[in-house]
C-alpha cells in the first residue's frame, strides 16, 4: 500500500520537477514548483514527520511561492511565443552532467541507516513530532535558534529601510 503510494507521489514529483524547467511560461513553472513542494511534504508525512510537512506547505508553498507569483504578476512577464529562449545549452548540460555524477557518487557511497540516538519512530508517534522539535529547539539548539532569529530580524529591518526612504 505504502509502496504504491510512494511510487505515485514520486512520479508526480519527477514530472512536476521536469515541468519547472521546461515550462516557457513563468507562472506555469511556479505552479509546477509548488506541486513539487507538495510532493516533498507528502514524503515528510510518510516519514512520520507531520510537523515538517505542514511547515513545508505553509512556508514554501504558502508564503515564499506566493511572493514569487506576486512578483511575476507585478512585472507581468508575458511569454512571446515567437522569441526563442537560449538557455546556454552547453554550459547547462556540463553542469547537469557533473551534478548527476555528484548525486550518483553520494547514492553509491552512502548507506541507508536508521537514525541513531534517543529518537525512535515509536517515540515520535507517542510524544508527537511537534513537542519533540519544540523541546529540542528551545533546549539543545537555543543559541543557533536565537542567532537565526536575530539574523531574520536584521533582514526585516533592512528591507523596511530599503523600501521606505522616509520613516
Amino acid at each position, binding site marked *: *500500500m505504502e509502496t504504491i503510494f510512494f511510487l505515485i507521489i514520486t512520479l508526480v514529483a519527477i514530472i512536476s520537477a521536469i515541468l519547472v524547467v521546461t515550462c516557457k511560461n513563468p*507562472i506555469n513553472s511556479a*505552479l509546477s514548483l509548488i506541486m513539487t513542494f507538495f510532493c516533498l511534504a507528502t514524503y515528510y508525512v510518510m516519514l512520520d514527520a507531520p510537523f515538517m510537512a*505542514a511547515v513545508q506547505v505553509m512556508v514554501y*508553498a*504558502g508564503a515564499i511561492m*506566493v511572493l514569487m507569483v506576486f512578483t511575476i504578476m507585478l512585472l507581468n512577464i508575458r511569454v512571446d511565443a515567437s522569441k526563442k529562449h537560449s538557455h546556454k545549452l552547453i554550459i547547462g548540460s556540463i553542469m547537469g552532467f557533473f551534478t548527476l555524477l555528484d548525486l550518483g557518487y553520494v547514492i553509491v557511497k552512502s548507506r541507508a541507516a536508521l537514525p541513531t540516538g534517543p529518537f525512535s519512530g515509536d517515540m515520535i508517534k507517542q510524544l508527537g*513530532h511537534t513537542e519533540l522539535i519544540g523541546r529540542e529547539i528551545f533546549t539543545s539548539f537555543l543559541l543557533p535558534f536565537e542567532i537565526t532569529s536575530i539574523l531574520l530580524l536584521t533582514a526585516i529591518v533592512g528591507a523596511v529601510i530599503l523600501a521606505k526612504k522616509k520613516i
Partner: protein
Amino acid sequence: MGIEILGLPLMYYIAMVAKVLVAFVFVLLTVAYATYAERKIIGHMQVRLGPMRTGWHGLLQPIADGVKLFFKEEIVPSQASTFAFLIAPLIALIPAFITFAVIPFGGVIEVAGYKVPLQIAAYYDTTAGQVFDVNVGVLYILAMSSLGVYGIVLAGWASNSKYSLMGGLRASAQMISYELAAGLAIISVFMLSGTLSLSKIVELQSGFNGFEWYVFKQPLAAFMFFICSLAEINRTPFDLPEAETELVSGFCTEYSSMKYAMFFMAEYANMVTVCALTVTLFLGGWNGPFTAAMPLLGPVYFIAKVYFLMFVCMWIRATLPRYRYDQLMHLGWKVFIPVALINIVVTGIVGYFI
C-alpha cells in the same frame, strides 16, 4: 470483524467512506443554502423580502441558480493564459473543501461493535482506548488556507484584464497579511491546550457546561481570529478583491458559467470552514449537554454553532460598509499583529504563575 483488507478491518473502510461522503454532502448543501440564507437574511435586515418566486418563499432559488450557471456559455478570453485560467477555480475550491478532513464534528459513535470517531482523519485505537487524529490538525488547516490564495491570484493574473489583476493583487496582499495575524491570534490557544490536535482541543473544552470554552479564557484571541479569518476569505467588510463599485467583480470578472460558480462555492465553503474552525477552537466544538449519553447529539450542536457563526457573518455583511485599502492594511499590520503578540506574552506570564 471477519474480513480484513491490507491489515485493516473492512468496517474501517466503510466508516471512512461514509464519513467523507457525509461531510462532503453537508458542506455542499450548506454552501448551496448559505447563498439563499444570505440573500434572505440581508433582505429582511434591509426591510425587503429577498427571493420569493422560486418555490415556497424562494426555497428552490439555489437550485435555479445552479441550473442557470450550469447552462451558461463558457468563455475563455482570447488573450488569457489558458492553463492558469482553467486551473485557478479548482485551486480555489479544493483547499476550501479538504480542510474539513481534520475538523471533529462529533464524539465516538459505535456502529455494529466498531467504534467510529466522527472526524474524517481519525481512528479509534482499541488497545489504547482513545482516538488518534492528525496531531498537527491546526497547522494542516493553516497550510491549506494558505494554498487557497493561489486560486485568486492566478485567476486575477491569467484573465489578462486590468480589473482582474487589481483584484488579484489586492487579494494576495490582503490574504498574506491576515494569515499572519490569524496564525498569531490562535497561538495563545495552543499555549493553553498544549496540543495541535483538534480532537484533543475539543476534549479539553468539555467541562462545566461551556465555561471551559476557550472563548472565555481567550476572548481577545477569539475576536481577532474571527475578524482575521473574515479578511482572509474576503468576506465583507474586507471584500476589496471583488469590490463591485471599483473593480466590476475583481478577480473573477472574466469568468463565466461553472468556473464562476466554483469561485462562488469556494467563497462560501471557506466561510463554512472558518466558522467550523472557530467553533472547534473557541466554542467547544461538538460539546454540549447530554452528549455523553447520546453521542449523536454532538453533530447537532456542532452544526447549530456553525450556523450561528455563519449568521453572524451575514449579519456583519448587512451592517458594515467596506473598509478602505489603507485602513485594511493598517488594521492588519499595526493593530492585530501587535495585539496578538501582546496577548501571547500575557498568556505566557499568566500561564507561568497559575
